[in-house]
């Protein structure tokens, strides 16, 4: 139950952060372009339409960020528990000025922590993809396997990720593989399910072509099933990597070592709340980048937009 709450809290944090930060990155350039505007003597009404258009695009997200920071500042000013945006910013500047220092196993720069988390996610998610995608392919293709695996998947999929941690600790007898195991088991389901759905939805027309040509199973897979299913697979991969990144923080809080999740817990024990806020932003931004990268890949390989 605790894990579930934790997951939800994180999810919300990522979601709330996702919107403003994404717009911020796209806003930075046009904003610079807009700077000379007040310097010119032209009245507001005669501002070029291009400039107005830019303002229309970057205005709302910018306002959102300002509101967010404003509310944050207000809350922090009304009590002394939450650090102010300015104080957090100063702390962030200090942390990111030396992200790769190493002072023993429990005191390393934020860069190492992020990389350690990314490595765990990479291994766990990678193994999940290696097993999940082919398995989903078979389940989508063979009715017997579908009927065989469906109940197991339905049963295990809704299980909270951290419920798997004790099993991992029991089997691997070490914290790091256990954390990777949790990533693996919680990120495999979207890939299995999406791949299976994709394969079962390959248009009958394409399969008729395969039948008329009497293609070999290998050719059918490579020339028809795989390309037709690719968009579904990539959706599964995107969902999976989101889940993996969501779960890693919680898993690392419990397993310790190096990693962004452990770092959050460590800073909580030090009562360094600025660092916790920074961690939240970092987790959000890294998650966002992972997702955007996958959307980019998906766009490149989707056959609707041949490159």
């Amino acid at each position, binding site marked *: 139950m605790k894990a579930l709450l934790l997951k939800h809290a994180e999810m919300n944090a990522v979601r709330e952060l996702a919107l403003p930060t994404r717009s911020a990155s796209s806003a930075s350039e046009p904003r610079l372009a807009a700077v000379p505007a007040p310097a010119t003597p032209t009245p507001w009404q005669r501002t070029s339409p291009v400039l107005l258009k830019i303002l229309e695009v970057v205005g709302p997200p910018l306002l959102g960020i300002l509101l967010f920071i404003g509310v944050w500042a207000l809350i922090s000013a009304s009590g002394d528990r939450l650090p102010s945006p300015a104080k957090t910013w100063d702390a962030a500047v200090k942390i990111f000025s030396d992200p790769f220092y190493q002072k023993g196993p429990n005191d390393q720069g934020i860069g190492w922590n992020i990389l350690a988390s990314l490595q765990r996610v990479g291994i766990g998610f990678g193994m999940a993809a290696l097993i999940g995608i082919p398995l989903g392919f078979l389940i989508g293709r063979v009715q017997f396997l579908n009927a065989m695996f469906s109940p197991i998947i339905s049963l295990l999929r809704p299980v909270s990720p951290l419920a798997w941690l004790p099993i991992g600790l029991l089997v691997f007898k070490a914290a790091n593989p256990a954390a990777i195991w949790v990533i693996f088991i919680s990120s495999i389901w979207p890939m299995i399910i999406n791949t299976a759905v994709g394969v079962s939805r390959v248009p009958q*027309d*394409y399969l*008729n*072509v395969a039948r008329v*040509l009497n293609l070999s199973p290998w*050719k059918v897979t490579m020339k*028809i099933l795989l390309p*037709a299913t690719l968009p579904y697979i990539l959706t599964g991969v995107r969902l999976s990597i989101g889940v993996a990144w969501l779960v890693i923080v919680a898993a690392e809080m419990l397993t310790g070592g190096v990693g962004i999740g452990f770092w959050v817990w460590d800073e909580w024990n030090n009562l360094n709340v600025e660092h916790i806020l920074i961690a939240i932003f970092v987790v959000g931004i890294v998650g966002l980048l992972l997702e955007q990268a996958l959307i980019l890949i998906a766009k490149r390989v989707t*056959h609707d937009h041949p490159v």
Partner: protein
Amino acid sequence: MDKFLSIENAGMTFHTKRGKFEALRNVDLAIAKGEFVSLIGHSGCGKSTLLNMIAGLLNATDGVILCNNREVKGAGPDRAVVFQNHSLLPWLTCFDNVYLAVERVFGVSDSQGRQAESKAQMKARTSAALALVGLTAAEAKYPNEISGGMKQRVGIARALAMEPAVLLMDEPFGALDALTRARLQDELMVILQKTGSTVVMVTHDVDEAVLLSDRIAMMTNGPSATIGQIVSVGLDRPRDRLALATDARYIECRRLVLEFLYQKQLRPAA
């Protein structure tokens, strides 16, 4: 008449949730080599079902279908299909769509002792097939980059490149506008004049049927549909659509088909 393609007492019964549904019963049709036969009938009469049975995409539940003296069991490249919605693979270029079919047919040595062809030979075949339908310039394009008429031409090129014993066409021009359809019909006649292919085409267009066919098999309404009457067109080839418009035989054939469809097999008001 030699029976190159022979449908003997064929029937098709589907087992649906609401019980048995007999779509076709006692269908008999013999087609000679090089002949062009159209199947025409009201929608839902089972003409596409019959075509799919010849293709082997559906297996007849009664009777037999013989192609080249061998029973049709399952689909195969000797009975190429031009699908109504072209069914090109969107992730392959026009060239690769055709090449996929060429490679399957000519890339392996067959049971009659024909050797597998080299890649260069197969590429030449592919280019030749696309040239036949006038699409040399679009070889490197993807299906979503060309018009509907061009897609249908690629579909025809793919089917013809396989050098099938029988070319099966399921309303090949049904989704096209009237002008494009007329142009493709003319092109098809020229191509078939060269290749001498045996063709079975499903259509619901009376003019198309009379213009293209040697014989028109008219189907009764389902359920339990069958071939009600066959019209032998008997017009000389090459045919010219403008000259035929006033041709007595053409008008007579047209009248026979219309009479069958709208008097003998008038559909109850839908």
